Every structure is written in structure tokens, then in C-alpha cells.
């Protein structure tokens, strides 16, 4: 009884009979990204077929088999389609498994979704957080048990992330699912997640982590071979955290990182590694390709076509991983190769070759066609002698005879490709016109983030292979009105600089030339680094991230303080209020009192400088006035000598760098500060002694202040004498 009571106290939200609460899950039926455009303009991502079954079908099947009893499906984009699909699906009629849809039209991120779910107050305990494009066959029991036990011991252990080993490719640095490199630091004994960094692929070997990580933890393992499965077991606190931090949007980029950085609340995230089970999320076209093939290879058993097949169209597994549904009209001379799935009611003409591909329901494939590594969805008509290599072809597409799809092509719904037309590699074709500019609201900041890193990374790449690609995009512009004779649809032009991403994330295997190029680039970079390690080539991306952040933070902080100060001056805000505001800024940027003092002093000098003045004297008077007016503010950040020295150093810096005008007045102002008791004698003395060993250049102001310093040194003696007398 005793431990139970403790737990009940520690976890205030959970009732004592935690065990009897049905396991709930939140399924986000929206990925909040645009990776699958143009297809997702017409159909939500979760309903896209993955080996002839909508992705959400896999997710729900797993949740059901893992013992989840209540699923809340959060629909956002194309909510109606998702809801009507679920309404007609088998999941609605199952006992002990309820699927409830939650519709929203203004959510633009996972964060918004979770906030809405929190408002609805439907989640009552631990829940599984998953997105509708994730599939797995892992057993939740172990992970759940671990999570609950940890929670019992430590109420701050609010989340368990499921991870899996997966080595990134040594050349492209991306995982087999096409996601960018991921770097994690995990405590090997407790499995606590200590550090999480995405998009590490371009940092080529350097990555800086906070040294406090090493100080605080006795042992720590660093991984770049771990894949995030995007399956999280969360406690109720996660939802309330999202509500408290209204700026959390992305689950990983904001929430996980936010929790890891934030040491005030002390929330902890743990990992659960799965070994033999399978878990993966369809993040991009390459992931789509890889996961499809994993399904065909039965890694996801029992989520495989012959077991999952819906309705009466029983799919049978034949030799060498061939899955064939019933009622297939196949010509005798057609060759269907290994690892191929053919849907119901599809007819295949003579001498057609299909290998490593998935063909949906009701397709008509003519004779002498070649389909290799492609994904052909339902009701597609492929006429004679067409060639498809590593392409995705959506529902209702018509390919006229002898048309060709080059690797990486995506044809969205109902596109018609004209006769003899060759669709160039990596192009995306849709009936809908490309949105003229990327809607920044939808893209969200993390999308921008992404392109930033990519841009900086592609710098070198583009130089190398820029020319042929430029030709391509020109060609695309040229033909974008027409897809050959009788063609219908628009070829979306690729944004400049995104070619890099195209081959990285397409279904096509990475061309050998490309691999060779990258290897070459890496080698060159390595040489550069070894030759001149102080100045790495075109170095933006090579700089450790956190340092940039620290510097950035300092600059931002100073600006913010200045803005606050100016507002205070203009609006006559009381000093106490200003102190409050600056304090809050200080907390949010994690700064020291000395930084505040420096920043405030800086702003004061700026203010004095901005006031009209023509002569040195006038400037000095301005400074005098400002200091008089705001000395209380400044003093409140000067609890000790160190801060005062900081102010002097800052002053020096100002005089040297930003405001040369002030430099002649250095001594006077220093004297002024001394008179006002802002800076004590000791601080000035320490500053002087600190500067003794410095370079000549650094000692300019010491020299300038020599007389003042001497006066200072003599003054106390006089005082003493006076006192003595």
C-alpha cells in the first residue's frame, strides 16, 4: 500500500487505479510538412497507399494489436477525407477499440494539435503519441511497463521515446529512411536522453555538446547510429507542457530540445531501444520506398500484404516475395519479377516486365512495358512500351504509349502523360499548379530552418553540378505547359538549390555518380580541414551550433535590453519596472548580472550619444544627465566588484569599437561613475592590475586614465590622513 500512496501523491493527475485506465493513443493524421507535395494537395498523407493499403491502416492495426483501447485521431489537412475513411473502415466496428476523430482547421503543427487535445480533456493517463504515417510491430508492454515504473520513481520522467539502431550511410550521412543524420546522447545505465540533434549530416565530424553533460553524468554514450521511431509514450504532463509553452510547435525540434535544455523544471525523457521489432515513419519519398520494401520483405510481420489485405481481395504470397491478389489478368509472356505486389483486378499485357514494384488495384498495363522499382497506385493506365523506373504514379494516371518516367518522378492524381514524352528525373507533375510562393504560414519556421541548413550545405554541391541541373530546370520551364501530345498536368519547377534535396529524398536509388561526387567532396573537405584547421572551408556549417547560439544569444540579449531601456526612457517607465523587465529577459536568455550591467551601460551610452550634441562638452553633459537619471537601474545590477569591472571593460569596448567619439572622454566618464558611487575604487584598481600584463593596444585607456588612477591611489591616503587628524 505504501508505495502506491506515494505514487498517487507524486502523480497528482493520475487516479490511484492507474492500471484500470484504458491505454489511449493520440494519432496525428497530419504530418504538418510538405514533403509529399504535390500528392498531399489532393489527399492527406495518412491515406496514401503504402503497398496498396493506406498508411493509417498500418498505424491503427499496430495500435490495436499493441493493446491500445482508445485512439484519438487528430485530423487537420483534408480532415473530411480522413474522417469519412475512418467512418467506413473496419476500425469503427471493433469491440474494445474505439477510434474517435478530432477535427481542426487551424492547427499548423503538432504542438497546436496537442494543445487542442489537452483542451478537449479526453486523455486521462499515459498515452501513446504517434503520427498516422508510422508503422511498427513492436510490443508496447515492455516499454509501457518501463515508462510506468520510471514514472513511479521519478515524477519528472514524462516521456519514453522509442528508438532503433540504424546506421547512416557513410557517404550521404542520411539514414536508410532518407532522414538526415541524428545525433543523440544517452545515459547507458538509465537510458535517459541527454541530447538530441537533428540535421547533423553536414557538420562533417564536428559537433559540440555542452560540457555540463559530461560533468553531470558519470557515463554517457553518443550515438549517430540511432533512428528515432517517432513513437512516444507520454504522460499527461506532456500535454500540459505544450499548453504552457505556446511556442512549442514541432515535437522534436521544440518540445524534446526544449525539455532537454530546460533544467528548471527538470523533466526527463527516456529512450526505449527496440532490437528485433520494426518501427519506422514515412518521412519522405525515400522513406516511402524503403519502408515499402521492408514490408514486402516481411520485416513488419504481421503487417504484411497477405495478412492485412482488406475485404475479399485476398493477397497471396508466392515464391521470391511475389504478392498477387485474386483476379489478375496476366499475360503468359509477362515477367513479374521478385519482390513485387500486384493488386486485384489488374491486367498486365504481354512481354511486360515488372520488378521490385508495387502495382495497385484495377490497373491496366499494356504490353512491352517496363516497370522497375516503381509504385503504381490504383486504376492507373499504362499503355504499351512505357518505361517506369523508380517513380511514384498516383491514382488515375494515364501514361500514353512509349512515354517514359525517369528515376525519381512523381505523378500526382489523374495526370496524363503524352505519347513518347520523357518526364525528366526528379520532376513532380500535378494537375494543380504549383503554389506561386511557398506559404510561409504553412511552412512553419522549422521548415525554413531546414532549408537554411540545406542551403548552406548545398553551396559546395551546387558549384560542382550546378550546370547540368540548371539546364534541367530551364528545360522544365520550357515544357511545363505541356506534357507531350495529349498530356494533362503541370510539371512543378524545382526551387533553386533544392536539387540536393531531390535526390536525397526521392524514391530513386542514389546514382553512382552522385555518390562518387559526394565522396570526392568529403575527401576535399577533409583535406582542407587538415591543412588549415583554424579556418575551415566556407565555414558556416562547420561551426559548432551551440557556440553560434551562445553568441547570437548575447547579441539578441543586448538588443532586447536596449529596446527595453529606450522604451523606458521614452515612456517614462519607473525604474523598478525596468528592473523587472530586464530581469525577465536575463532569465530567458540565461545571462549573468554582469551581462545585464554591461548591456544597460551600453544602452545608456547610446542614449547619451543619440541626444543632440555638437561638442565634446555637450556629450559629456549628456552622459552626465543619463547617468544621473538611471544610476539606480545600473546600480541594481552591480552587486559586486566583478560586475563593475565588467562595466569598465564594456565601456572600453564601446569606446574602441562602436562609438569612437566617447574615447577621449573615457577618463572623465570613469571619474563620473566613480563620483556617483557606481564604480568603486577597488574595481578600478583591479581593472588596472588586470590590464597590466595586456598588450599595448589594450592599455590605451589605462594610460589615458593614468592621472585619474594616480589621483585615486593618492586620494585614500589623504582621506586616511584627514581621518587621522
Amino acid at each position, binding site marked *: 500500500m505504501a508505495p502506491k500512496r506515494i505514487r498517487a501523491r507524486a502523480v497528482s493527475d493520475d487516479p490511484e487505479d492507474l492500471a484500470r485506465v484504458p491505454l489511449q493513443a493520440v494519432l496525428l493524421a497530419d504530418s504538418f510538412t510538405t514533403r509529399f507535395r504535390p500528392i498531399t494537395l489532393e489527399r492527406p498523407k495518412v491515406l496514401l497507399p503504402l503497398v496498396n493499403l493506406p498508411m493509417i491502416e498500418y498505424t491503427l*492495426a499496430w495500435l*490495436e*494489436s499493441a493493446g491500445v483501447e482508445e485512439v484519438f485521431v487528430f485530423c487537420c489537412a483534408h480532415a473530411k477525407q480522413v474522417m469519412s475513411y475512418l467512418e467506413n473502415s*473496419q476500425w469503427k*466496428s*471493433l*469491440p474494445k477499440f474505439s477510434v474517435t476523430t478530432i477535427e481542426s482547421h487551424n492547427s499548423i503543427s503538432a504542438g497546436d494539435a496537442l494543445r487542442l487535445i489537452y483542451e478537449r480533456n479526453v486523455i486521462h493517463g499515459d498515452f501513446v503519441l504517434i503520427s498516422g504515417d508510422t508503422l511498427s*510491430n513492436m510490443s508496447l508492454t515492455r516499454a509501457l511497463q518501463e515508462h510506468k515504473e520510471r514514472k513511479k520513481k521519478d515524477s519528472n520522467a514524462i516521456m519514453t521515446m522509442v528508438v*532503433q*539502431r*540504424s*546506421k547512416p*550511410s557513410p*557517404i*550521404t550521412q*542520411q539514414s*536508410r529512411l*532518407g532522414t538526415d543524420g541524428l545525433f543523440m546522447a544517452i545515459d547507458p545505465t538509465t537510458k535517459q536522453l541527454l541530447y538530441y540533434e537533428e540535421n547533423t549530416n553536414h557538420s562533417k565530424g564536428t559537433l559540440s555538446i555542452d560540457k555540463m553533460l559530461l560533468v553531470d553524468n558519470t557515463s554517457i554514450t553518443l550515438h549517430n547510429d540511432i*533512428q528515432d521511431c517517432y513513437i512516444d509514450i507520454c504522460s499527461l504532463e506532456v500535454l500540459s507542457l505544450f499548453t504552457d509553452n505556446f511556442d512549442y510547435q514541432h515535437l522534436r525540434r521544440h518540445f524534446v530540445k526544449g525539455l532537454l535544455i530546460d533544467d528548471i523544471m527538470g523533466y526527463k525523457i527516456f529512450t526505449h*531501444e*527496440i*532490437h*528485433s*521489432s*520494426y518501427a519506422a515513419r514515412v518521412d519522405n519519398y*525515400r522513406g516511402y*520506398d*524503403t519502408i515499402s*520494401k*521492408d514490408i514486402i*520483405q*516481411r*520485416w*513488419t*510481420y*504481421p503487417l504484411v500484404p497477405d*495478412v*492485412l489485405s482488406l475485404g*475479399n481481395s*485476398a493477397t*497471396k*504470397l508466392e515464391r521470391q*516475395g511475389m504478392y498477387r491478389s485474386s483476379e489478375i489478368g496476366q499475360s503468359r509472356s509477362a515477367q513479374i519479377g521478385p*519482390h513485387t505486389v500486384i493488386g486485384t483486378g489488374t491486367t498486365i499485357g504481354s512481354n511486360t516486365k515488372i520488378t*521490385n514494384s508495387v502495382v495497385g488495384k484495377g490497373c491496366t498495363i499494356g504490353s512491352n512495358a517496363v516497370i*522497375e*522499382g516503381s509504385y503504381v497506385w490504383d486504376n492507373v493506365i499504362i499503355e504499351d512500351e512505357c518505361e517506369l523506373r*523508380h517513380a511514384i504514379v498516383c491514382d488515375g494516371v494515364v501514361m500514353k504509349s512509349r512515354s517514359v518516367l525517369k528515376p525519381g518522378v512523381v505523378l500526382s492524381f489523374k495526370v496524363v502523360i503524352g505519347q513518347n514524352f520523357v518526364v525528366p528525373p526528379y520532376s513532380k507533375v500535378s494537375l494543380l499548379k504549383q503554389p506561386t510562393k511557398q506559404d510561409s504560414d504553412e511552412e512553419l519556421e522549422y521548415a525554413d530552418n531546414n532549408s537554411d541548413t540545406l542551403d548552406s550545405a548545398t553551396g559546395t554541391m551546387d558549384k560542382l553540378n550546378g550546370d547540368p541541373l540548371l539546364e534541367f530546370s530551364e528545360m522544365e520551364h520550357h515544357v511545363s505547359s505541356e506534357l507531350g501530345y495529349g498530356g494533362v498536368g503541370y510539371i512543378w519547377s524545382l526551387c533553386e538549390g533544392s536539387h540536393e534535396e531531390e535526390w536525397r529524398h526521392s524514391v*530513386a*536509388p*542514389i546514382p*553512382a555518380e552522385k*555518390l562518387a561526387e559526394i565522396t570526392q567532396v568529403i575527401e576535399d573537405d577533409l583535406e582542407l580541414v587538415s591543412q588549415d584547421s583554424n579556418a575551415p572551408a566556407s565555414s558556416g556549417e562547420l561551426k559548432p551550433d551551440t557556440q553560434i547560439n551562445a553568441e547570437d544569444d548575447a547579441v539578441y540579449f543586448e538588443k532586447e535590453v536596449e529596446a527595453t531601456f529606450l522604451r523606458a526612457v521614452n515612456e517614462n517607465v519607473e525604474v523598478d519596472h525596468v528592473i523587472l523587465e530586464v530581469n525577465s529577459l536575463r532569465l530567458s536568455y540565461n545571462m549573468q548580472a554582469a551581462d545585464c550591467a554591461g548591456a544597460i551601460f551600453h544602452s545608456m551610452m547610446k542614449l547619451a550619444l543619440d541626444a543632440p550634441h555638437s561638442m565634446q562638452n555637450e556629450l559629456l553633459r549628456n552622459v552626465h544627465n543619463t547617468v544621473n537619471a538611471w544610476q539606480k537601474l545600473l546600480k541594481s545590477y552591480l552587486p559586486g566588484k566583478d560586475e563593475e569591472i565588467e562595466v569598465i571593460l564594456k565601456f572600453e569596448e564601446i569606446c574602441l569599437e562602436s562609438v569612437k567619439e566617447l574615447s577621449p572622454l573615457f577618463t572623465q566618464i570613469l571619474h563620473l561613475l566613480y563620483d556617483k558611487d557606481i564604480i568603486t575604487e577597488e574595481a578600478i584598481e583591479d581593472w588596472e592590475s588586470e590590464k597590466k600584463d595586456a598588450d599595448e593596444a589594450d592599455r590605451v585607456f589605462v594610460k589615458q586614465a593614468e592621472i585619474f588612477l594616480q589621483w585615486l591611489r593618492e586620494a585614500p591616503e589623504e582621506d586616511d590622513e584627514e581621518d587621522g587628524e
Partner: protein
Amino acid sequence: MDQTSRVLQIDLYYDLGESGGRLLIMPDVQTLVNELLFKLKKRKIEGSHATARQTAILLRLVISQQRIPYTHQAAALIDAVKAVGEQLVAANPVELAVGNIVRRVLHIIREEDLSLSTVAMVGLNVSAVSDDEGDTDQDDHPVLSAAAVAAASRNTLRPPSLQTLLEDLPDSAAVPHTSSSGDDSEGKSKSADKSSRSRRLKHDVIEAVNELIEDISTSHEQIAEQAVEHIHQNEVILTLGSSRTVLEFLCAAKEKKRSFRVFVAEGAPRYQGHLLAKELVARGLQTTLIADSAVFAMISRVNMVIVGAHAVMANGGVIAPVGLNMVALAAQRHAVPFVVLAGSHKLCPLYPHNPEVLLNELRSPSELLDFGEFSDCMDFGSGMGSPLLHVVNPTFDYVPPKLVSLFITDTGGHNPSYVYRLIADYYSTDDLVLQRKPAPVN
């Protein structure tokens, strides 16, 4: 006593089915059917024993809640069972026990109907008194009498002369009934008798299905009872993987104070042999665990191989956990008896030349190797767009009948060549193909 209580329980079911309207009751059955379908589909029920039991229980419910018309009662029941059965078989075609049980229930319906109609024939021909007599008779030995009639009538696998002789009997019995149903004036007098007959048909069928469920539940014990006849003092027994039947069999011999040793091959890749070894040790048996690949090395010291099966085919071949064919070959090489234990629900009336039957379940390759460790070998991103490493994990082996020395079922030991005869006892040839459209009445 036990029997009467069961009868009461059945009556309860039966009354529910009669009194409740079809609309009220049918959805309930449908949800239960869907539930089992779902479980089968998602491979949530493991093992033919559990599958068989659940199938039988579900079919009993289907029968008890099926409203029966005044004519063609048997046909109505057969249709209902077939409709459900077809779905169940399609849900997991690899689990042959489902089909077996569906066919056996169909067989039961046919037999009961046949025995009733012969009794009715006799009653009509002789007098009304015989009806009561028949009734008591039925209650005492329902299955025996049914089996007796069936044996006399339905065995198409018998020599043709006998079959043709007896096949005429039900046909002639069926003809007057169908004609009488259309004729109102004649049928009026028989209607009371008919309704009681329909009640009785259902009653008898449910009774017989109950027996079937009972048989399935007790099949382990039935087989285990024969253990002492086969396992002798100081023998060495080899088995592979884990089977509950084998475990019970060995333990039964142990309980009878036989002392013997057991070699357990671990049964890669699921390693259920480990579990079996643990269980055996817990029951105090001297156990040795060996790798599957060591079977050939050890077989010369073995007196007998005893294994379980997934299904026994009509020709005496066995569908068994992967690795058993190798064990059977090793046993043949050293002339060690290869004994297969199989409950009667595992007897499948199909022949293994049928591709439907030889479907093997390919399970997840992750049982063989850790996906995370080998994920770089499964990379599709480069090269030909297809990985160089494929991992295949079949569940079953087919052991041909010539490698099997003996089958031990709940009815005793049988030669592989006798299996077809056993099957003829349990199944009627009309039901071999379940997908066929409703069979002609009787």
C-alpha cells in the same frame, strides 16, 4: 449428471435462438464472428488447438442462433455454417484447423439430419410410437447412432459397391420430404412432427458439436493416456521445438513411473525448445538440450522421435514446424521410429498437392536477426534499388508420409497409410471444398 447440465445449458442457448427475433440476435453473432475473424487475421490466436476450440465454440453459437425454416433444416444450417466457415478459412488460410473444424461441424449436421430422417422414415412407415423410442435412444448415444448411420451411408471412400448400395437410402428419404413440403394438405398433418423434428435436429447437432469441443479440449489427455504403451524404460526420446501435446505425452509417461531421457532440439528460430526443456525439467524429467543442427549427430543414441504437428494431411504427410523434415530424414537414416502426435482436429481432409494447402507462413525475418544491427545491409538507397541480403523465415516443413512411422491421435495409433480412412470417418466428401456454392440438399 454432467451430461444433463450440459443439455440444460444448450437448451438455454437454443431457447434464446428461438424466442429472440432474428434481427436482435444476428448482429450479436456477427460481432462474435467478426471478432474471431479479426483475431485469426491478425494472427492473434496461436496453435491449432486454441483455434480449433474457438472455431467450434463460435460455430455452435451460429447454429444455436440460426432460425430454421420448416423445410430443408439441414440445408439451412449447412449454409449458415458454410457462410461463416468460408470467412474464417479465408481469414487465415494457413491455419488448417479452422477448415477442419468447419468441415467436421458440417459433417455432424449431415449425419444428424440423416439419422433423424432415417428414424423419421422408420417412424412414418411403422408407427408413431417408435418416435418416442427413437428420441430416448438419441439422447443416450447421439453421436454413436449418428456415426453408425453415417458410416452406413456417407462413406464415399468405401468400395464403390457398398457406397452405391447405401447412398440410395438418403436420396430416397429426401425425395418425399421435398415433395411433401410443397403439398399443403398432406403437410398439415406432419407439421407438428416437423417442428419437433427441427428442434430436435438443432438440439442434436449442438449436442454433437459439444462433444466435438469436448474432444478437442481433452485431446491432449487422450493422447497422453497412450504414452506408456510407447515409451519404455530407459529409452531416449528426441523432440524438436515445443508442442503441448508432446509435453503432456512425456509427462504422462513420467507419471507412470517410466524413467527415460529426453533430447530437445531447440527449434530455431523461435527457440521454443528452450521453453519445453524448462517445462520438462520442472516436471522432473532428465532433459538434454541440443542445437537443431546437432540432431543428426545425436540420432543414433535415440530410441524414438516424438514430435507434434501443425496438420496431418489426407495422405499421411505432416505439416510441422520448420526443421522437422530434417529430423525425420535423420530418423529414417538410423531407423529410429518417427512418431507424430496429433489431435483429431489436426486431421485435414485435403491432399498436399493442393497449392492452397501448402501455403507456408513466412514470418518476420526479425526472428532470425536483429533488424537494427543489419539495417545497413538492407539499404535500398544505393546500388540496384534492392538489397543484397534477403532473409526468409518459413514456419512449416512438409514431412512426407513415408518418413512417418506412426500417428498417435486421440483415437489411438495409426499408420500413415490409414489416415485417409480416419478422415473418412470425420468428414463428408461434400464439404471438402468449402468455397463451393450451397450443396444440394441431402
